[in-house]
């Protein structure tokens, strides 16, 4: 794509028109950059201010006497509902949920993509289409049956607990959420790997088959070593999605000390007892945002690629 001023027009309208043009473009771009940065900036400076400064000062001014106390308070002391032990426990809940959910769904997605491209069978497109459609459903349409099933599993777990002294993770909120996120993340992970493996030369697989390599040998020795980029994309995509999920989290782990980070944050902010400590709220929001922000800063290219792959199919 070429610049807005063509060489022909440059010559006729002179250099000044071009300069004005550039100034307008850069001005607009800068203005929009401010629009996108503003909320994050306000959140960040507010989290370092004292309550006094927030009430009497300007939202946009830098903290006069920067303090890190709100961050410590958010992490270790702030009240979530009735318990006042900070958000650290919920942060770890999210970690414990995200790591297994991402790993399992990514690995299954890789296997599914491998089967759907290199071991095709009749009706493979239909199978893929059905799994793909699952990505797009509003989860409200499965929310209630899943709640019912998870409830039954929980009761079964409690029975096992009474009988054997161990519930095998049945009824545990984190296990439930891992399960839910794996099931409803499969469509996306399968999509990513299918599209990636689609371009992978089938001759290599055929050759390996002739040499007597088995299904799993081919996967491990040939596919996996060549899948690094799509693994990064999928892991980042799943990590962001699952970390940021609120609907499933609030439906299946919405109260008590089992809440994931997003639900806890929402509770912190909407706790109406006592003085609202905005600086602590903002610090809590920053802590909730940090993991995905760090991923974005470190691997932004892969993040964007994941979003694109999720948007443009086929």
């Amino acid at each position, binding site marked *: 794509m070429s610049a807005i001023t063509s060489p022909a027009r440059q010559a006729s309208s002179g250099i000044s028109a071009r300069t004005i043009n550039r100034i307008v473009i850069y001005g607009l771009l800068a203005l929009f950059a401010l629009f996108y940065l503003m*909320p994050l900036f306000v959140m960040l400076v507010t989290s370092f201010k004292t309550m006094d400064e927030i009430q009497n000062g300007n939202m946009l001014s830098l903290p006069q006497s920067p303090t890190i106390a709100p961050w410590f308070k958010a992490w270790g002391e702030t009240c979530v509902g009735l318990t006042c032990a900070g958000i650290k426990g919920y942060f770890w809940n999210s970690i414990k949920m995200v790591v297994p959910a991402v790993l399992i769904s990514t690995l299954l997605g890789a296997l599914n993509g491998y089967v759907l491209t290199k071991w095709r069978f009749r009706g493979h497109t239909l199978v893929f289409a059905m*799994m793909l459609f699952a990505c797009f459903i*509003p*989860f*409200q*349409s499965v929310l209630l049956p899943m709640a019912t099933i998870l409830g039954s599993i929980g009761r079964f777990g409690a029975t096992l607990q009474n009988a054997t002294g161990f519930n095998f993770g049945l009824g545990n909120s984190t296990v439930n959420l891992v399960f839910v996120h794996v099931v409803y993340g499969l469509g996306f992970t399968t999509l990513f790997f299918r599209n990636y493996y689609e371009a992978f030369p089938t001759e290599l697989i055929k050759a390996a088959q002739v040499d007597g390599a088995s299904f799993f040998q081919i996967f491990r020795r040939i596919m996996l070593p060549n899948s690094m980029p799509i693994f990064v994309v999928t892991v980042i995509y799943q990590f962001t999605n699952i970390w*940021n999920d*609120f609907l499933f989290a609030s439906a299946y782990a919405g109260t008590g000390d089992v809440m994931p980070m997003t639900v806890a944050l929402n509770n912190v902010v909407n706790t109406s007892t006592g003085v609202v400590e905005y600086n602590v709220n903002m610090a809590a929001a920053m802590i909730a945002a940090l993991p995905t922000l760090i991923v974005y800063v470190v691997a932004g290219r892969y993040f964007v690629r994941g979003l694109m792959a999720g948007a443009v*199919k086929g």
Partner: protein
Amino acid sequence: MSTVAETTAKLTPEHDTRPGASVRSRLQDLLPKIVLAPSFAATIVFVYGFILWTIYLSFTNSKTFPSYDITGARAYQRLWRWTFESDPPSSWYTSITNMGIFGFLYILICLALGLFLAILLDQKIRGEGMLRPIYLYPMALSFIVTGVAWKWFLDPGLGLEQTLHQWGWTSFHFDWIKNKDFVIYTVVIAGVWQASGFIMAMFLAGLRGIDGEIMKAAQIDGATTFQLYRRIVIPLLRPVFLSAFIVLAHLAIKSYDLVVALTSGGPGGSAWLPSNFMYEFTFKRNEMAVGSASAVIMLMTLTAIIVPYLYSELREKPR
């Protein structure tokens, strides 16, 4: 049984001489399907089975707990009646009106702003590598964080209004977030803030994919910049418009978290979307059948958009 063995033998001729090997090779043959089966079964049960279950529930009179006696389409009749109950508005009326306002503005503004920013960024800009991530980072945040940030920013007593008052513009008034008639527009603002950068990235990728020769030819023919974009570039971006529309439509219908975090539902539930309606009626108001019916309506709406799209996407390249 024998046909399976025959096909297996045909596929892997080197295995069929020894009797034990035929079983092994048949297993090898089935293995891909065995690997795929759990995922597919999970999709069938937990997606399609659960959807049917939800549809079933919507035809019962389930309240707090699911009941399995079919009692007819009463839930849908109630929703239908509420659809026209505008004064005072029923929660359902508010939800679907909000969905219309939010969906329309959110999609339109994101598309317009995304395209506009992409075109600006495509003018050989110095520092593009720095600007692009700034426009796009909100997409990495959760709706809850976005909601918290904008709630603060739009709060009349703390945010923008207060700031402008301090700067001397004392007559400035902006309390949409507390106003039941305008609260849904604050959801639009926050939603656009979050998604428009991503739409920009989609358009930018599309622009970069356009053949430079076409542009040059048009310029030589004396097309002005505006004509160039209006007549050549934008029509070429049609597929991107479609993808972006699908992404935005599905984000819009799924929006739930943002309303909760930004407005807590708004004064008297005035910021509800159908997703919030479903959640509240199912889990808070013990109207499970009505909640299920609303979920079914949401699903149908989304299906009407997604299925034709997926069909064309998967059909285009016959394999």
